[in-house]
């Protein structure tokens, strides 16, 4: 399966190079050079994983993480950072990031974490779908019992 990834980092050359490497691994990658640019996207819900830099101008990674999770709590955010303090890392995880990797991240390790995040999102989406089906079914059953009593 080809994972769909959104990569957010203000270092333009780094982002494009990492994206090129991920594409050679059959991932579909979209890049954004700021959190503001990423949050402007209408298709954010469709990404299997979002890779987010912690330190960026305009809007930092933690603020962006908060806004992403507010938009859709199921979105899987992996923090990728140059120099993370333990405090910031813990905060990011408490705020719902699924992983924290330090740059330069080993490509195969990043690949593995992306696949894990993607699988987690798939499970969450499936659970949500099953819940919806159950809800529809229960409404349908209530409707059936009402009509049979008539």
């Amino acid at each position, binding site marked *: 399966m080809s994972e769909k990834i959104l990569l957010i980092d203000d*270092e333009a*050359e*780094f982002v494009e*190079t*990492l994206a*090129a*490497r991920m594409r*050679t691994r059959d991932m579909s990658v979209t890049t954004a050079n700021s959190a503001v640019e990423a949050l402007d996207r209408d298709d954010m819900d469709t990404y299997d994983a979002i890779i987010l830099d912690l*330190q960026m*101008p*305009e809007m930092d990674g933690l603020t962006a993480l908060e806004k992403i999770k507010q938009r859709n709590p199921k979105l899987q955010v992996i923090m990728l950072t*140059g*120099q993370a303090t333990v405090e910031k890392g813990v905060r990011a995880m408490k705020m719902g990031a699924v992983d924290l990797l330090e*740059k*330069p991240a080993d*490509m195969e390790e990043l690949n593995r974490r992306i696949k894990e995040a993607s699988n987690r999102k798939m499970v969450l989406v499936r659970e949500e779908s099953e819940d919806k089906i159950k809800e529809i079914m229960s409404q349908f059953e209530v409707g059936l019992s009402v009509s049979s009593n008539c």
Partner: protein
Amino acid sequence: MTKEQNVPGERDICFFGTVTASISHEIKNVLTTINETAGLLDDFAFQAQRAESELDPSRARDAAAAIARNVRRADGIVRNLNRFAHSTDRSRAVIELGDLLNLFSNLAARLAANRGARLQVTNELGDLKVLTAPFSLLHLLWRSLEFVLVDMGAAGQIQLRVSATAGENSVGQQMELIWENSTKEAMGSVADFPGEIERGLLERLPGLCQLRQEKDRIVLLLG
């Protein structure tokens, strides 16, 4: 300068730490890009080895050029770090003010960018040399910029200008930080600027120096 003034205070050490931390972040960014580019070259070679695709010479050359470009970028950052470290060599030295302002702009670019601002240097003095206290002057400029960015909420372009001033009997120099957009209205002197720390740094500079805040600028008159 008295002996006490030569001893770095806690604020000086904090300033030194802040600048070196910022530079280390920049170096790390460059190294990370070099690492990914080397990885990309390795990916190309791996694909060619497995005969998945032919090694495209132009893509390999682009990657090599990116590595060379980033090595030059890192070299520039390290040069700035080296010059900043040497600003502590002597408490007073004869330097080019325009050159020092360029160094300051390079050191502070990241601080400004984090607040959505860009720095632009205007040097009207050319290569004029003056006697000053380089480290204290850099520290004073840094504190002034922090005030402009944080307390004044300045964003967009901030001009760093060094120019000549003509007094009644003498010609002097001034440095200015001029901002275009601000979230706060400055009417004359607001907040505590220059504060105690800035006044202490001013006292370390040779001659009678003044620092004042105007509506859209901070002016440092050098003695």
